[in-house]
C-alpha cells in the first residue's frame, strides 16, 4: 500500500534531508530516534516521515512559517503592484489628447497582453509534461533566494516543494492568474471611474486594415455580452461610430460602447482568470496531497538501511566448546623428499580425474592407490597392517584444508605403520594462485598441526611437488 505524506510532513522530511546532506552527518538526536523506529511496525516510508516530522519540526518549523509569511507578504505586495500597474495601464490607454477614443486600441491595451499571456500559458500547459516543467520552479526559486532570504533548509524546502513536481506548475499558475486578475481588476476600477466621471466618444478607425474585418470583430466581441442580455452596440451603431460622425450619433452610442468595454473586460479578462485561479488553487491542493518521497535517493537508501535493515544478526545460539588453535609458525618446510629406499605411496583424497597416479617413476608394487572414502581407507589400513616394515609416503593436496576426519585417518595409519612414515604436501603452486602468501603458510601450518598430532615426525612432513599432474 502506498503511503502519501501530508504536505507539511513531506517538507519537514525533505528539509531534514537537505540539512543532513549539507552537514554530512545525521542530526544529534538521530540515533535515538532511529533506534526507537527500528522496532515499530510501519513501512519504510512511514518511518522516514515519522523521523522527518519528529526531528524536523523543532529545527525547521519556525523557519517554514517565517518563509510562508514572507512569501505571502511578497505576493501581497506583488498583487498590489499588479493593481497599480493595471490602473496605470487603463489610465494611459484613456489618456488621449482628443475626447474621442479608439475602441479597438483601447480594447487591445486593456485585454491584448492578457490574451497573449493566457494563450501562452495554455500552450505551454498543453505542450510541456509535468515532469519536464521548469518554468514555475526557476521563477519561484529566484524569488525565494532574492527576497525571502531563507538560509534555512526549512524555508528552501518549502519553496522548493511548492515549485517542483507535482505542485510546481499549479503554484506557478496560481501566482500568474492571481497577478493578472489583480491587474485586470485595477484596469476595471480605473476604467469605470473614468467612464463615470468623464465623457468619451467611442470611434474606430483604420488605415491599413480591412474595415469589414473590424466590423466583424466588433460583432464578435458583442456576442457574449448580448447573450447575457446586456445592451451592446448594434450593427448600425458599429458602422456609424467613425471619426467625423455627427455628434448626436456618437452621443447615442456612448453608453453602449462604455458598457461593452467594461463588460468585455469582465467577460474576457477577469472572469476567465478568476475561474482559472479557482481551478489552479484546487489542483494545487490536490497536487500537494500527491507529493511522494523519492526513495531511490542515496540519502533515503542509507536511511532505509538504518530504519529497516535487510537483515539482523540474532546472535550465537550454540556456543563453541573449543577455540580455534593458533596458527603454527613454520620455518624451512621446503626440504626435498629424501631418497627413500623401497617406499610405498598412498594418495589421500586426491582428485582422481586431475591427478596422474601413481606419480612418475613409481612402479605398481609401490602403489597403494588413492583413498577417497570409508571403504578405500579401510582397505588401505588393512593393507598397511599386513605388510612388513617398509617406508610409507602419504601424498595429499594442499588445495584441500585438513579436517578432523583426516587427522583420525592419519592417526590410524600411524598406528599400523611399521616403517618410517612421510607426508608429502603437494600442489603448493596451484594453491598460491588461490591464496596469498600468508594464507598459504597458514594452510601448510594447519596440515603440520594435524600430522604432528597424529604422531608423524616433524621432519617427515614435507611440502613437495609430487609429479602427479597430468603432463
Amino acid at each position, binding site marked *: 500500500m502506498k503511503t502519501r505524506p501530508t504536505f507539511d510532513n513531506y517538507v519537514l522530511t525533505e528539509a531534514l534531508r*537537505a540539512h543532513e*546532506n*549539507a552537514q554530512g552527518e545525521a542530526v544529534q538526536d538521530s540515533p535515538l530516534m532511529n533506534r526507537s523506529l527500528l522496532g515499530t*511496525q*510501519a*513501512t519504510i516510508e512511514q518511518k522516514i516521515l515519522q523521523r522527518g516530522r519528529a526531528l524536523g519540526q523543532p529545527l525547521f518549523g519556525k523557519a517554514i512559517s517565517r518563509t510562508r509569511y514572507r512569501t505571502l507578504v511578497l505576493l501581497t505586495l506583488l498583487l498590489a503592484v499588479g493593481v497599480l500597474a493595471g490602473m496605470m495601464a487603463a489610465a494611459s490607454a484613456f489618456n488621449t489628447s482628443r475626447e474621442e477614443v479608439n475602441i479597438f486600441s483601447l480594447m487591445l491595451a486593456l485585454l491584448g497582453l492578457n490574451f497573449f499571456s493566457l494563450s*501562452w*500559458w495554455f500552450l*505551454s500547459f498543453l505542450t510541456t509534461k509535468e*515532469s519536464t516543467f*521548469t*518554468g*514555475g520552479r*526557476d*521563477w519561484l*526559486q529566484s*524569488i525565494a*533566494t532574492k527576497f525571502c532570504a531563507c*538560509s534555512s*533548509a526549512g524555508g*528552501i524546502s518549502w519553496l522548493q516543494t511548492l515549485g517542483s513536481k507535482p505542485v510546481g506548475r499549479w503554484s*506557478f499558475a496560481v*501566482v*500568474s492568474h492571481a497577478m493578472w486578475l489583480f491587474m485586470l481588476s485595477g484596469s476595471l476600477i480605473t476604467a469605470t471611474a473614468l467612464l463615470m466621471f468623464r465623457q468619451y466618444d467611442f470611434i474606430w478607425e483604420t488605415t491599413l486594415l480591412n474595415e469589414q474585418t473590424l466590423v466583424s470583430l466588433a460583432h464578435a466581441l458583442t456576442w457574449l455580452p448580448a447573450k447575457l442580455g446586456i445592451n451592446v452596440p448594434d450593427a448600425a451603431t458599429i458602422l456609424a461610430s467613425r471619426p467625423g460622425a455627427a455628434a448626436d450619433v456618437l452621443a447615442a452610442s456612448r453608453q453602449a460602447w462604455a458598457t461593452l468595454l467594461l463588460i468585455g473586460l469582465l467577460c474576457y479578462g477577469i472572469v476567465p482568470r478568476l475561474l482559472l485561479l479557482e481551478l489552479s488553487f484546487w489542483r494545487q491542493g490536490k497536487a500537494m496531497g500527491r507529493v511522494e518521497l523519492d*526513495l*531511490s535517493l*542515496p540519502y533515503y*537508501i542509507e536511511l*532505509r*538501511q538504518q530504519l*529497516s535493515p*535487510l*537483515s*539482523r*544478526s*540474532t*546472535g*550465537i*545460539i*550454540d556456543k*563453541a*566448546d573449543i577455540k*580455534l588453535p593458533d596458527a603454527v609458525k613454520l620455518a624451512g618446510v621446503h626440504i626435498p623428499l629424501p631418497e627413500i629406499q623401497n617406499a610405498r605411496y598412498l594418495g589421500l*583424497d586426491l*582428485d*582422481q580425474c*586431475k591427478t596422474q597416479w601413481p606419480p612418475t617413476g613409481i612402479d605398481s608394487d609401490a602403489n597403494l592407490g588413492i583413498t*577417497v*572414502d*570409508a571403504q578405500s*581407507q579401510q582397505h588401505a589400513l588393512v593393507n598397511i597392517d599386513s605388510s612388513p616394515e617398509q617406508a610409507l609416503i602419504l601424498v595429499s593436496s594442499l588445495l584441500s*584444508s585438513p*579436517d*578432523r*576426519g583426516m587427522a*583420525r585417518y592419519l592417526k590410524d595409519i600411524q598406528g599400523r605403520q611399521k616403517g618410517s612414515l612421510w607426508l608429502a604436501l603437494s600442489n603448493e603452486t596451484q594453491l598460491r594462485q*588461490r*591464496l596469498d602468501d600468508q*594464507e598459504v603458510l597458514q*594452510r601448510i601450518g594447519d596440515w603440520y598441526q594435524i600430522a604432528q598430532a597424529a604422531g608423524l615426525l616433524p621432519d617427515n612432513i614435507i611440502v613437495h611437488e609430487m609429479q602427479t599432474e597430468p603432463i
Partner: protein
Amino acid sequence: MTNAPLRIAVVGHTNVGKTSLLRTLLRDENFGVVSSRPSTTRHVEGASIRAANREVLELFDTPGLEDSIALLAILDELAKTPRSDGIERINDFLEQEETYAVFSQEAKVLRLILQCDLILYVIDAQEQLLGKYKDELQILGYAARPLIPVLNFVSQRPNNADSWQAQLARLNFHATINFDSVVYDANGEQRLFRQMQSLLSTHQDSLQLLMEERASQWLKLQESASSVVAKLIIDVASYRQITQHGDIDAAKLQLQNQVRNAENRCAQQLLQLFHFKQSELNADDLPVQDGQWKMDLFAAQTLQQLGIKISSGAAKGAAVGAGVDLLTGGLSLGAATGIGALIGAGLSTGNRFRKELNAKWHRESFHCADDTTLQALLMRQISLAKLLQHRGHASQAPVTIESKASPLPKDWSKWIKRCRQNPQWSGLDQHLFSQTITSPQALLKEISAALLCEIQAENA
C-alpha cells in the same frame, strides 16, 4: 500458509564458505568470522532476513562437518533395531553426546537441523565429490529435511561444478544451485529463493514477498547509484573557476583538487550504498581505498587504461581545459513559461551574464574541467558501480577492476554543453543549500536514466 519465519540451516564441510554465503545473503560483511583456515566458525549463529516488515527467513551459520565418515559409522551402529529411522538415530546420538565429545561440532549441526525447515548444503565447487561429502549428505538425509545443495566459488576457474551437479543428481539431489558468495549475482539469489519456494509450499507467499522486495530494492539501489554518478558529472561539468590572469597554474591545481575530492566523495557514497565499509577494502580488492582512488585521475596512465585518446592539443595527462571565456547563447528561453517565468529567468540569467561581463572587464578568465577529465570521471565511476554490484559481501580474494572503456552515452556532449552554460548548477564549492536549490532535476533524471542502462548492462 504460515507467518513464522522459514528456518534454514546453512551446513557443509569445514571451510567451504558457509559464513561467506550468509554474509552475502545478509548483505552484511560483519556477520561471523571468515578466513581461509578450516573450522573458523565453531558455534551456531543466527540471523534473520526481513521483508514487508517482518522476519521471513531465519538463517543459522553452523560449524563445519569434519569427520562424517566416523560419524556415519557411529550413527549406523546406534541403529539398534533395523526399523529405527534417521531421526531416531540422530536423537540416540544426541542423547549420548558426552560419549562422543570429539564430535561436538557435528552434534551442534545435528541438533540444529532437527529444528529447521530447510538445509542449505554448501559445497566448494573447486573440490571433488569425495566419500566424506557423500557421507555428510547421507547423515543430513537422516534428518529428513528438504535440502538444497549450493555450489559456492563457481566463478573460480577451474572448478568441478558440472561434475558435482551430475553426481548429486545420481544421489537424488536435483535442486542444486550455483551461488557464489564472492561474486554476487542478483539473479542467482532469486533462483535460490525460487528453489526454496518450490520445496516449501507453506512459505511460498513470504518468499514471494522477499523476492519482490529484494528485486525492487536492487533496482532502487542501481537507480541511486546512477543518480550519484550523474550528480558528480553535473557538479564537475558545470563547475567554473575564476582566475586572474597569470595565475593559471595555481588555478589548474585548485581545480584538479576540487575534481579529485568530488570523485572521492562519489566513490565513498557508492561504497556506502552497496553496504561496503571503506576501511575494510584493502589494497588488492579495489582501486579505491578509504574512499579514495588509488590511481590518480589526472595520471596519463589512467586515461590510457580507460582508452581515452588524448587529443594533440592537450598536454600529457588530463589537462584541465582552457578557460572558457564569455559564453554566448546561454539563455535558455525554452524553459521560461509565461511572463512571470521570463521575469524569473531574467533575474537569474541576467545575474549570470553580469558576472561574466564583469569578469571580462576585470581580465579574469574561467576554467572548467575539460572533456577528457569528465569522460575519465564517468568511466571510473561506472566501472566502480558495476564492480560493486557484483561483489559479494564475503569477498576477500582480490577482484580486478576492468577499466574497460565504456561507450559514452549518446547525449553526452549535449549534457556537458548544457552544464557548462549553467555554472550555478555546480555543487562543488557552494556551501549549504545553494546546490539543492539550483540542481537541474530534469537533466539529473535524464543523465541518471542513461547511466542506469549503462550500469545494468552486463559485461560481455
